[in-house]
């Protein structure tokens, strides 16, 4: 593993996209960035640019219009990347399961690596989720470096 890959694991940058959540999980993600939970202690930085990001935090179930936006953001992120679905809606559709415009969880559109349940998911759970995502990121980085070695 090169120095870039190692630093990627030490300081992952996250991109947050709100699909069709109720804002509950979004403000919890923001809360985990602010002093009280201070996710920057772990080197995690919130970025607005998908090309800078390693981890995609998605909240809310996917609806018909934003499925395209979500795919765009996912495709723009450089490999290796990890998708964390935050909240019950992002996992399965949650309480909005019978709404006509909801397609279901995020996994209907893009592959999801970590599921964070809860409505709304607590900041502690989000931190746990991102940390779990980093394990996945490590595996993916190793797989990629093995491929390159071949």
């Amino acid at each position, binding site marked *: 593993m090169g120095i870039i890959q190692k630093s990627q694991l030490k300081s992952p940058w996250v991109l947050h*996209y709100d699909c069709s959540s109720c804002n509950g999980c979004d403000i919890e993600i923001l809360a985990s960035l602010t002093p009280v939970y201070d996710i920057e202690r772990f080197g995690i930085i919130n970025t*607005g640019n998908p090309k800078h990001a390693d981890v995609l935090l998605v909240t809310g179930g996917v609806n018909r219009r*934003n499925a395209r*936006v979500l795919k765009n953001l996912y495709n723009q992120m450089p490999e290796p990347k990890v998708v964390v679905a935050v909240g019950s809606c992002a996992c399965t559709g949650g309480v909005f399961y*019978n709404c006509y415009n909801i397609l279901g969880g995020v996994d209907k559109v893009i592959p999801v690596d970590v599921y964070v349940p809860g409505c*709304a998911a607590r900041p502690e759970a989000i931190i746990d989720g991102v940390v779990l995502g980093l394990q996945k990121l490590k595996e993916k980085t190793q797989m990629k470096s093995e491929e390159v070695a071949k």
Partner: protein
Amino acid sequence: MAKIVTPFGPQHPVLPEPLQLNITYEDEKVVSVAPAIGYIHRGLEKAGELNDFPQNVFLVERVCGICSFMHGMTYCEAIEDIMGVEIPPRAKYLRVFYSELSRIHSHLLWLGLLADAFGFESLFMKYWAIRERIVDLMEMTGGHRIILSASCIGGVRRDLTDEQISIIEKTLLEVKNELDHVTPVILKDYTVKKRTVGIGVLSKEEALTLGAVGPVLRASGVAQDLRQTGYEAYGELGFEPIVETDGDSYARAVVRAREVYQAIELALEALHHLPEGEAQVKVKGNPNGETIQRVEQPRGEVLWYVKGNGTKNLVRMRVRTPTYAHIPALLKMLPGCEMADVPVVTLSIDPCISCTER
């Protein structure tokens, strides 16, 4: 100079939510704005017709995670109105308390986001650190940091113990004390004034004809607050709406910064006058009839229309949320301002897109 159309959103670092505005610029000046919403539309109103009406309490709380309690409360009020249920006085005061707690949380959140929008990072962090104490109170009383689920048809699910009340009173006074140090920054700081004074002006007449509500309307000099109608226990608590006259982004920030203090006062007063007795009555039967219920949310007036036909399922459930009413006003405020001011003006209406699109 050629005109350029640029989309603002749906994914934008300033906006926590996907709102898309297609803005036409001439050089750096905004000429016109066309909204393109629908990125969070779920179809919640239809789901409300498919679910049973008691289940809807939890669905409508998820219209918006920030003013979650108020949506649930208004829906419960509407059902109680149709069914002719009188809730106990203790429940009325508890609802006032929970509403004001939500208002403090929402305003502090917004003041932080505004600071973030014009790049005042330390103020953003400070406001969110204070807000976290209110969120702790919500967790202690309601059982969850964001979605309180405290309201139910027939009263309040979560009663307060005396021990909790003393903790709440202590914390609210501490929060007030901390705010005394931070609020002058919003009111007096050069950076804040530079970015907000005279930006996104909405005159009194425009505010009325464009249907603005809540803090936006009050910042334009209209003393209108639905809490004046005295729903729940507001009629028994002393209350005066907070009004500013300039109608710019600064006035809107000032209204909200002052409303936080007012909300703390009201919450403390509600606890002080909390009557003894039950907090919940049992409700039997199904709603038959229709009603319109309005409540003052942190962002302004929310309107719930509910119609039942005597079965478990409702015929129609509709919500008109404050941000919905603010979008025409936003389209009026933006033209004429500069590209760099667009995030500040957009945030000054306190946009909540998941409310708007449901």
